[in-house]
């Protein structure tokens, strides 16, 4: 991703963002609310059109208007802060929708892979339940399963624990740690500094649409060089 810029009207949200994610790496974006973290993930998923700059995914410039955005999205997974599960489908229906309709997997095989993935996130017994009958943590695990079941090359996770009760945050973060150790490539933004420290290969601090500081967790969180980063971290810890 290089020189990415995005403005909504006169409001410049991303002002020339550059960073790289390598296969199997986990990049954690940190920064205050409104610093552009969510917009960055949406741009990467082509849900927002960038105003300038280039995003390269598996060697292809996906910001080129000739690129089929649906096809690009089918190779990525995005998990939202508020789960965004489809309430009219069962848990299994949510997980298998993209397999069946986007990837053309036969219903029986899709069901099998869906159940395996639900088992993977510890929710096999909830397959026939409706999303509304689950706790927030369970719903978010279903959402992660839904994104993961198509074997995306990149997972984007947008504040996936921010809407959860504190005692439910752990189950989702544990799942993400497992994914990281299995080699899933991830970009996520979070306010959970302890988690960022544990799983991130690279931490990027975003402020006013620019990455002010990036490096290993030990550098950025443990020993921040920039005044703004220090101010942000002290506010979070207070």
């Amino acid at each position: 991703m290089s020189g990415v810029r995005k403005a909504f009207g006169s409001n410049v949200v991303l002002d020339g963002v550059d960073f790289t994610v390598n296969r199997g790496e986990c990049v954690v974006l940190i920064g205050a609310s409104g610093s552009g973290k969510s917009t960055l993930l949406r741009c990467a998923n082509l849900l927002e059109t960038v105003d300038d700059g280039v995003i390269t995914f598996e060697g292809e410039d996906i910001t080129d208007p000739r690129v089929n955005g649906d096809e690009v999205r089918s190779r990525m997974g995005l998990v939202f802060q508020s789960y965004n599960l489809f309430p009219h489908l069962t848990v299994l229906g949510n997980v298998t929708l993209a397999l069946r309709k986007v990837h053309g997997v036969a219903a029986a095989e899709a069901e099998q892979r869906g159940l395996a993935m639900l088992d993977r996130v510890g929710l096999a017994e909830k397959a026939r339940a409706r999303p509304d009958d689950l706790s927030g943590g369970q719903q978010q695990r279903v959402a992660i399963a839904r994104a993961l079941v198509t074997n995306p090359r990149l997972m984007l996770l947008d504040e996936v624990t921010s809407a959860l009760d504190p005692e439910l945050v752990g189950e989702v973060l544990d799942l993400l740690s497992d994914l990281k150790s299995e080699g899933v490539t991830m970009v996520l933004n979070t306010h959970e500094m302890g988690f960022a420290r544990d799983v991130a290969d690279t931490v990027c601090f975003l402020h006013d649409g620019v990455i002010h500081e990036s490096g290993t967790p030990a550098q950025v969180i443990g020993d921040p060089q920039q005044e703004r980063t220090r101010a942000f971290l002290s506010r979070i810890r207070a």
Partner: protein
Amino acid sequence: MRPAVTDWQPSAIQLERESYRRRQAARSTAIAAASTALVLGVVGVLVVSSPGWERVHETYFDWDKAVDSFPAVLAGLWMNVKIMVVSAIAIVVVSLTIAVMRTTRGPIAFPLRLLGTVYVDVFRGLPLLLVIFLLGFGGPALDLSGLPRSALFWGCASLVLSYSAYVAEVFRAGIESVHQSQRLAGRALGLTYAQTLRHVVLPQAWRRVLPALMNDLVSLQKDSGLIAVLGTVIDAIRAAQIETAKDFNYTPYVVAGFLFICLTVPMARLTDWYARKQGFAGAGSLM
């Protein structure tokens, strides 16, 4: 957020993207325009080249007859507009009452709910034309003191009764779409049931169903012409009928149809505009 950085210049790659998007947009527009013209052209040629076109042209599209009948039909249309406006106001009042009755809770309100349900079931089940016949001729015959005996009054009453059943269901859907937590929040502030309804639930419900209501209003504009069957109300359709009876040339009906479209098209665009304003992106957009 900081204000816009004014010195930003798009990069060469971005300029190339933008010009590509512009070319794509121009191409799409050209294809759409060409295909529209083609379809209309084919339909036009088919109609005009049909064997009976000469006779149809004479009886339905006689320019002199159209000019002759225009003032009478237009005067009739004014009657339609008046019927529509008066009925629409009454419909909102009646249907809102029914909708509120149907959404009340608790065993005490059971008779209200029953009454509302029966009303909706009956008047939604009856064809509008039948209601107009029954009330339009039967209503005056009742000779109720205090109520006018005119066909106009009873015709409007038929429209109001019939449409209120439909519109009440739209309102009910709107009221029920407002989440229960909104009612709880209202009651938690100490508002009564009625106050919660008035200040919290209905304003939200109203906003959600307005596009659907406008749709019903357009429909009402046209159905106001059905009162013509009562014979004594001279609306646009009845006026066209009278003009046609003079020489059995059907052009006045075409004139009436044209005028009705002129009346409903602005309403339809207004509905689309409002729906878009409410955030239904792309709703009814022509482009």
